[in-house]
């Protein structure tokens, strides 16, 4: 085996990559179990699998961030060892991470130069900023990826930050690009643009490894599909394979991708927001005059790209954030002055968007997490004590009822998978009589099997006559669950539309573009 040092280049375009028997263990867990993959030059190779299937672990080994316990990486039939990303880059492999690896307070050019800076010598390496800038502009023009070299990264929208990441990889002359869940943060339009960029890159002979769990995108772009489940390759497929078959491969059993539900029978108005104005943590206006109404027995979905005020809106309703103006009413009673505890006690269920920070206490057991909101109420306890017997009984029932896969209800919640942690939250919030259920990103980081289950529970709750507010950045989820969709953009509700509205129109609305046709439906 041979190791490479920067900036030594071993290959000539095109690049053929082969992984042979890659195995990686973390303690008892086998994250990757003898994985074999070949990526041909100029192809988009999709790596499809659920969260936690081992896709990212595999790619981190390919990018030199982790070292495999067994197996070989071959570039153009030559076995190589990657001790750090530097080696991988030198071999022509670049990676765009799911969470962008950009320094927010640096300019685009600084971020792109970082690690392989152009210098004019000197003991500390005097930076040649003009050359760095020129390199950025050149790459950006060559591949048709517009970026402003002087902009601060923190001022850029996510779509543009992603372009910076891609340009950053391309300036390092890579021939194989790993894209880790690149569409998770994009609007439908931005996703289309990204797919176009991927096509033009492969046309220039670059190959792409596309990691995702979104079936539609895989079918749209991939030349070959490898499906991973629990660390193993469970099959390869061509893009002609149907979504149902791909999903079944991914999960290991047949799953229904559609949310099955009957038409809603909306009743009285339960939640009423009028003229709601809320600021974010920095004191910048996040919600700017929102009027909304959620009725009993219906699901109102809020669609929108993340960061358009959805988070702040929900937090304001839950009493977690101060109102600047406007009113929040639950069955005609104001919630504005109530504490979060009293809002919960008034019959509001809340599934927060950030499960690990706001949804569960990871160190607490499943049983304890299931009574976090009711610990001082009968039957679980009173102001002085907790009745461990009834806590235990409750836990057993909920674990069964909500299909929480665990060894014992006494295990810490932190030991569960994301999907099962979310089921704990859902079980807790749906175990008391509700008037209103607020579910923020209810299936983020949750496996397909659990998504089906959680969606079913939400619809079940609706059919019991609860008013449901669902916030999600996954358009599919909003469309599947909602009876009415409110599209949020820059702190305002642009339109309230029916879930039958064509995707393209929803996408445009999420990007803040309202057509005249939409106007009569706008509130």
């Amino acid at each position, binding site marked *: 085996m041979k190791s490479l040092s920067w900036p030594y280049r071993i290959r000539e375009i095109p690049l053929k990559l082969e992984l042979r028997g890659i195995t990686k263990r973390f303690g008892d867990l086998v994250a990757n179990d003898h994985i074999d993959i070949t990526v041909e030059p100029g192809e988009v190779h999709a790596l499809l699998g659920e969260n936690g299937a081992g896709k990212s672990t595999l790619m981190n080994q390919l990018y030199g*961030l982790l070292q495999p316990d067994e197996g070989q990486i071959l570039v153009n039939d030559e076995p190589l060892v990657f001790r750090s990303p530097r080696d991988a880059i030198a071999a022509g492999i670049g990676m765009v991470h799911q969470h962008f690896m950009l320094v927010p307070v*640096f300019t685009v050019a600084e971020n792109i130069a970082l690690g392989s800076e152009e210098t004019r010598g000197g003991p500390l390496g005097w930076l040649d900023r003009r050359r760095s800038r020129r390199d950025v502009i050149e790459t950006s023009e060559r591949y048709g990826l517009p970026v402003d070299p002087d902009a601060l990264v923190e001022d850029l929208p996510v779509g543009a930050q992603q372009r910076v990441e891609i340009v950053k990889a391309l300036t390092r002359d890579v021939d194989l690009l790993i894209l880790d869940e690149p569409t998770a943060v994009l609007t439908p339009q931005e996703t289309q643009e990204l797919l176009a960029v991927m096509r033009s890159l492969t046309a220039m002979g670059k190959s792409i490894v596309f990691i995702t769990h979104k079936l539609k995108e895989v079918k749209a772009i991939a030349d070959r599909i490898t499906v991973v489940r629990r660390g193993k390759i469970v099959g390869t497929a061509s893009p002609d394979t149907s979504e149902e078959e791909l999903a079944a491969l991914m999960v290991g059993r047949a799953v229904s991708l559609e949310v099955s539900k009957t038409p809603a029978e909306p009743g009285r108005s339960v939640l009423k927001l009028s003229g709601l104005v809320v600021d974010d943590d920095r004191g*910048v206006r996040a919600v700017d005059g929102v009027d909304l109404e959620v009725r009993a027995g219906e699901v109102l979905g809020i669609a929108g790209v993340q960061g358009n005020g959805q988070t702040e809106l929900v937090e304001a309703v839950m009493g977690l954030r101060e109102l600047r103006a406007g009113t929040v009413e639950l069955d005609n009673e104001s919630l504005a002055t109530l504490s979060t505890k009293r809002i919960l006690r008034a019959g509001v269920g809340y599934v927060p968007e950030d499960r690990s920070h706001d949804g569960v206490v990871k160190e607490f057991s499943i049983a304890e997490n299931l009574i976090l909101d009711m610990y001082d109420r009968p039957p679980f306890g009173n102001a002085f004590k907790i009745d461990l017997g009834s806590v235990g009984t409750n836990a057993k029932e909920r674990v069964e009822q909500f299909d929480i896969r665990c060894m014992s209800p006494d295990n810490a919640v932190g030991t569960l998978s994301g999907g099962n942690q979310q089921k704990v939250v859902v079980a807790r919030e749906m175990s008391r009589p509700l008037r209103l259920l607020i579910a923020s990103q209810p299936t983020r980081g949750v496996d397909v099997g659990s998504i089906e289950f959680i969606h079913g529970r939400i619809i079940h709750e609706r059919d019991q006559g609860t008013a449901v507010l669902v916030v999600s950045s996954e358009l599919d989820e909003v469309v599947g669950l909602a009876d009415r969709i409110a599209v949020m953009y820059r702190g305002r509700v642009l339109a309230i539309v029916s879930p039958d509205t064509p995707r393209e129109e929803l996408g445009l609305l999420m990007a803040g573009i309202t057509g005249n046709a939409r106007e009569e439906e706008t509130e």
Partner: protein
Amino acid sequence: MSTATVEEIGEVTAPEPFWTRQRRLGVALVLIGVLAAVLFGSLAPSEAARFTLSEDAEGAALSINGQFGAILFGIVTIITGGLLFTSFAKRYQNLLLSLGILTFVLSFLCWQVAGKFLPLVDTTSGTLQLALPLILGALAGVLGERSGVVNVAIEGQFLMGAFAGALVGTMATSVWVGLISAAVGGVIIAAILAVLSIRYLVDQTVVGIVLNLFALGVTGFLYERLMQNDASKYNEPPRLPEWRIPGLADIPVVGTVLFDTNLLVWVALGLVVLIHFGLTRTRWGLRTRAVGEHPTAADTVGIRVRGLRYMNVLLGGVVAGLGGAYFTLVATGSFTKNMTAGAGFIALAALIFGRFTPFGALGAALFFGFAQKLATYLSAVGSPVPSQFLNMLPYIATIIAVAGLVGRVRAPAADGVPYIKS
């Protein structure tokens, strides 16, 4: 690729809030300006305030009527505050701010000096000398914190540097050996800090506090058991010589202060410039800042995060150790127990007040040094203002800075967060 969609989303920023940093600073300046003009103006006797170029009351001097001066400078402060508030001349923001603070200080001086005299050269060089360890200590902090390691052990590094400089300097009868030993002393503390916080992921603030106590204990013990027994053998280091640069030293005030002085002054000022350009213009600086802001991003482009942090913390140890040398090799000529008396914490304050930048740290250190110098002057002339008030100034300034009353101080994002490779 660049359709309207992307551009539109690019504008997802709310309008700027009314109370910007500039506006708040403006209001603050107007308030202290009014205080100066009214309070200082009414208290000041209508006598000449003389700022003399020589050491005594005679000779050339800048002179102004105390009451008139107090009111005049107070009014200038109000005007600069007003200009800041109205957002006039946005790009000269910092200049206006400095001018406002300067005129406030001048107003205060006019009141205090009215009917008396203030020797300019002595005040300026005293300020610089008192600021010297603060500058070096704060620079040590800049090096560590910009790469993501919190350094509250500056006090301990000072003490260790001061002690090592005195002990080894005396034994070797060479001030240069003493100076190098001082740097080594600082590095010893820095090395412990680095290993515990980078390798063993111990909470960096806790380690820092413990190291301060450790340095105090060790140097105190050795001082009592070793140095006090035979001071001439262990605790009489040669002093750092003062060098006079012919020509330049003849410039009034500035010449005496900057060009007829000891080596450490030049080292400190040189380091400010060097570290400033190092951080902003070199590969080392870009990587240091990247490691302090987003270590994972640095790692994914092949930068050795921990290695760079070790290097910067150790370099900081050298700089802080030199700061410690000031106490024994420049200021006094012998070591005494706990002789730094909290200077390391004022250096930490200067670092934060100076917004983690070399020039900011220099400015803050000079400001604090001036406050200390003024405190001595005020108690000497029997001023009604207790000198303790001025000694409090660094801490009050830091509280104001940290509380974000005049614009939030933004520490490097990964400051104090150990890097664990996933």
